[in-house]
């Protein structure tokens, strides 16, 4: 009869194998790591680049580098540099600058993103008033769009959207591009 002595050896060997197999399966090695990239900064950076590219800039702003200034958000600044530095807006080389002192703002900025609030924001807006600078703000959902700003980021159903003040844009001599206009939201 096939009593076959080998079976005992196999039984022992495979008891060990199955134990190793199941324990290997149960060892949760190499689990996924949380991507800690700043998603808000990425989204805002993408919008700022769109604003730069889709707007119809006055002729006197079409010389030299195209400058996006960032005030109060280093993550956004770093992401813009990482992703878009070296790109061109029309024939202008894109330059991203981090602005810590509002004195730097005045002449050479095309798009100015600021997270300033209160007096500091008023001062900044006054300083850039009547200049073809697209001032972009980002205020809480329950706060009205700051006076003098051209664009303001708002959160709508968890999404970052933007509202537009056309009057301020015109006062600054900016002709807002159709693509920017068509995606703007109202509150």
């Amino acid at each position, binding site marked *: *009869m*096939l*009593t*076959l002595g080998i*079976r005992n050896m*196999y*039984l022992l060997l*495979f008891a060990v*194998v*199955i134990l190793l*197999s*199941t324990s*290997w*399966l*149960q060892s*949760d090695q*190499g*689990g*996924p*790591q*949380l*991507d*800690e*990239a700043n*998603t*808000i900064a*990425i*989204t805002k950076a*993408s*919008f700022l*680049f*769109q604003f730069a*590219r*889709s707007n119809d800039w006055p002729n006197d702003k079409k010389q030299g580098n195209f400058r996006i200034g960032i005030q109060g958000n280093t993550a956004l600044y770093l992401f813009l540099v990482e*992703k*878009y530095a070296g*790109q061109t807006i029309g024939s202008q080389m894109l330059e991203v600058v981090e602005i810590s002192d509002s004195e730097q703002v005045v002449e050479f900025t095309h798009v100015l993103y600021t997270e300033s609030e209160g007096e500091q924001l008023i001062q900044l807006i006054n300083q850039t008033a009547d200049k073809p600078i697209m001032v972009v703000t980002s205020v809480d959902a329950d706060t009205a769009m700051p006076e003098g700003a051209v664009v303001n980021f708002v*959160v709508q*159903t*968890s*999404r*970052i959207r933007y509202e537009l003040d056309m009057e301020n844009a015109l006062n600054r001599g900016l002709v807002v591009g159709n*693509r*920017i206009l068509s*995606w703007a939201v109202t509150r």
Partner: protein
Amino acid sequence: MGSHEMKNYSSIILLIWVFVLFSAQANAQNVNSESIVDAAIDLAEQELFDEALKMIEPALLHEAKDDARAWYVSGYSHKGKFKKEVFLVSSTSALALSERELAVSQLIKAYEIDAQSSTSISELSLDALDYLSKTYMNDVVRGVRGFTRGMDDVIVGYFNEFVAIRSVINQNEDWTREEVEVEKNLARANRLLLETTPTDSEELFARVVAHYYKAIELDGEDYTARYNLAINLYNRGVSRLKSIDHTTAMFELMETQDACIELFDKALQPMLAAHTMSPNRKETLKGLTTIYNALSNKEESDKYKHALDKVLKAEGE
């Protein structure tokens, strides 16, 4: 004696004759079947499996169809052929797979026929099935380790075979825990493949998610499956956001953002469930802080950040 009685006697004699004839035939068949089985066993013991099978398999269709020994020797021979093939080629070659499948079905048959009488055939069949079940589990592990795209169903198939055989050996064994681990490992294997694939693959990502959902469905208490599912969904959203560049049009940016928010939303539920299971785990608190932040929900994000700081502080003390 009337002609009627004569007729009855003739019928009885005829019946007896038919019975004797059939009994003799059956007996001859039994003797024949026994000798075939014995001869096949001799061949199998000499590892002449093909010859053994040539002899025994035709008999399984007729005279030996209810003979546990015959089914066992046939199953044993297929198992022998399987082992040879494994040694020479691999356990997953077409021949090995078909030999193993035949071995399993024939050994189960041998066990089922013999189960009532409980001779050594039952025990030997179970031993052989035990061996074969483990080869299936080995193939599961090997499949996960050397995972290639689209192997999911094959690996799950091996595992299902393993469980099916184990249920014959012992109906009380519960392999749910291992099934959960197989699903989680397949999710991980697909993710690693996705991370190293140069072009994006929605199909691979769908498989990652499907395997984690299956693991959760199997085990309502599995923390890791929930946490990993949440991370995969969230990371997928981040990865899509990162894919936005200077070539992206405004409408694409809007669409991408919508898709990302949907993924972040989907990530929230399993992360919250993982948090409920283990409220003081740092990675979950960090995950919730991050997901809520991505959903622009500062209040909730701050709440979990505060909880995380508290845990970290307690650990530091």
